[in-house]
């Protein structure tokens, strides 16, 4: 709770800084503040407290994910200075929006009450609608915002209806009470109907098939930094929330439920990967790759009791790799109308560092060993196999090597050296991008070499 309050205060401070014309201080202040908050959260990771009549509960799960969110936000904020160079006057708006979004995210993983969950979801969504459309003059940005808004509020409606049904069945919004009630006696069918609707709402947020159509369009249209945010922070939040909801609410479900989840997971991976094969726009490609990763992360839903650590590991690996990839993407496509993969050609020569960072990020996403992405997949596969979901794992494997195809395609483009269109001039990259990129990759490799760092949190 202190974390949440501190972030809120920080966000307000950012807005105040704008008023008293200390714009230049905004980003350093935010980063320092967030680092402090991150330190605080990490130190208290084992503390389990509930606040305000169980409205907000901190547990290992929520603390760990909160720390991850804060860390990701630090990266995203650090990238902001150079990204928003042209509209620096609005920098505090952007930063505070990001902080509010972070608050929403933390609410979503720490809720103890459906109201808190719904509020968190809406804080997250609404700030994201704004960020999506923040490039007002750009029709694509508008379109992305519109699509996201329409579909997102539609999903919110469904979630809300689901909450209402759950409330109707249990007469409570409190998670612990709901658990008590659900474990006591048979509930009306509305309960499971409501839960399914809530889950559907979250499946929309993680862009699972067939609720995924918005993702590529919105990713492409939104300003790149926002896309980075959606692809990393928001996606991870949604997955964590989905996991938490499933963990708490999945009782008295219809018997086909787990099959449905498995089928959706398989479809999500497969559709995401297959659609990514022929993409020419890097952001769309990452969007589809994100969809398939969501499918992988859904594997954790097959083993709710044991895979929190695995999911956390995967989410971290995925998000960190995503940060690195988007950093390079931003650096390369700066000032360009389209983020074509082709614009990466010759990057190996123009800026080898960025090329290596992107390569590692993509290889990690593809699941090549020693990078964190491999262990993420490995842990999920292990868990799924031990629970007997071999079909799911086999589809996961097939998808892994489909995915490696398009990741490698990008890498190949980067190292193409005989392309005439490639700019031979060296690409100068702002320092912040370099730091973020290298740091993200370093973290990736470190947690790849010692996965225990993250896994042991949950023991």
């Amino acid at each position: 709770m202190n974390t949440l309050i501190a972030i809120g205060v920080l966000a307000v401070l950012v807005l105040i800084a704008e008023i008293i014309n200390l714009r230049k201080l905004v980003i350093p202040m935010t980063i320092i503040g967030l680092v402090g908050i991150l330190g605080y959260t990490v130190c208290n990771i084992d503390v389990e407290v509930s606040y305000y009549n169980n409205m907000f509960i901190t547990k290992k799960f929520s603390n760990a994910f909160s720390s991850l969110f804060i860390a990701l936000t630090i990266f995203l904020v650090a990238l902001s200075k150079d990204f928003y160079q042209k509209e620096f006057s609005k920098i505090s708006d952007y930063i505070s929006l990001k902080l509010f979004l972070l608050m929403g995210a933390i609410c979503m993983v720490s809720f103890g009450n459906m109201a808190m969950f719904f509020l968190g979801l809406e804080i997250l969504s609404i700030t994201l609608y704004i960020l999506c459309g923040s490039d007002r003059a750009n029709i694509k940005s508008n379109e992305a915002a519109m699509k996201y808004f329409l579909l997102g509020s539609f999903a919110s409606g469904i979630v809300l209806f689901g909450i209402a049904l759950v409330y109707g069945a249990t007469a409570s919004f409190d998670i612990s009470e709901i658990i008590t009630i659900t474990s006591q006696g048979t509930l009306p069918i509305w309960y499971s109907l409501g839960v399914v609707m809530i889950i559907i709402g979250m499946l929309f947020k993680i862009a699972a098939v067939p609720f995924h159509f918005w993702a590529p369009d919105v990713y492409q249209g939104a300003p790149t930094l926002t896309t980075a945010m959606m692809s990393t922070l928001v996606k991870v939040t949604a997955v964590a929330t989905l996991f938490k909801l499933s963990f708490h609410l999945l009782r008295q479900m219809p018997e086909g439920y787990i099959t449905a989840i498995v089928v959706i997971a398989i479809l999500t991976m497969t559709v995401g990967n297959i659609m990514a094969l022929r993409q020419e726009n890097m952001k769309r490609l990452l969007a589809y790759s994100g969809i398939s990763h969501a499918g992988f992360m859904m594997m954790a839903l097959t083993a709710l009791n044991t895979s929190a650590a695995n999911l956390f590991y995967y989410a971290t690996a995925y998000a960190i790799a995503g940060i690195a990839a988007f950093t390079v993407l931003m650096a390369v496509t700066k000032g360009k109308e389209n983020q074509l993969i082709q614009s990466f050609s010759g990057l190996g020569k123009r800026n080898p560092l960025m090329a290596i960072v992107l390569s590692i990020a993509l290889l990690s996403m593809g699941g090549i060993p020693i990078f964190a992405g491999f262990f993420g997949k490995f842990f999920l596969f292990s868990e799924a196999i031990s629970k007997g979901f071999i079909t799911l794992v086999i589809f996961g494997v097939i998808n892994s090597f489909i995915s490696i195809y398009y990741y490698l395609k990008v890498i190949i483009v980067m190292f193409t050296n005989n392309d005439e269109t490639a700019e031979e001039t060296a690409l100068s990259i702002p320092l912040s991008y370099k730091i973020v990129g290298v740091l993200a990759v370093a973290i990736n490799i470190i947690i790849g070499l010692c996965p225990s760092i993250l896994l042991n949190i949950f023991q």
Partner: protein
Amino acid sequence: MENVIEIIGIDKYIYLSIILFCIGVFGILYRRNAIVMFMCIEIMLNSANMLLVAFSTFHQDAEGQVFVFFTMAVAAAEVAVGLAILVTIYRNIGSIDIDKLKNLKG
């Protein structure tokens, strides 16, 4: 005070909400005017609100009604943002027909 729900029956409220909800859904599916679609979403939210209120009464529990206030606030904020987006779109393409938004695809 006599409980209204006991007279009419909770199931009727549920059916009504579901019908309202479906109207909202179909409205979204069949209309192409963004404003109308916003309104349909409001119908969906309000059907949920109604359900919450009904259950609140049914369970003799105030929480549900409190929740409705949250929802209304959120919905208001949402619509505000939505309209803002709509305005920027109208400025850029001079239309609020969502079928014209097809730049992003593939």
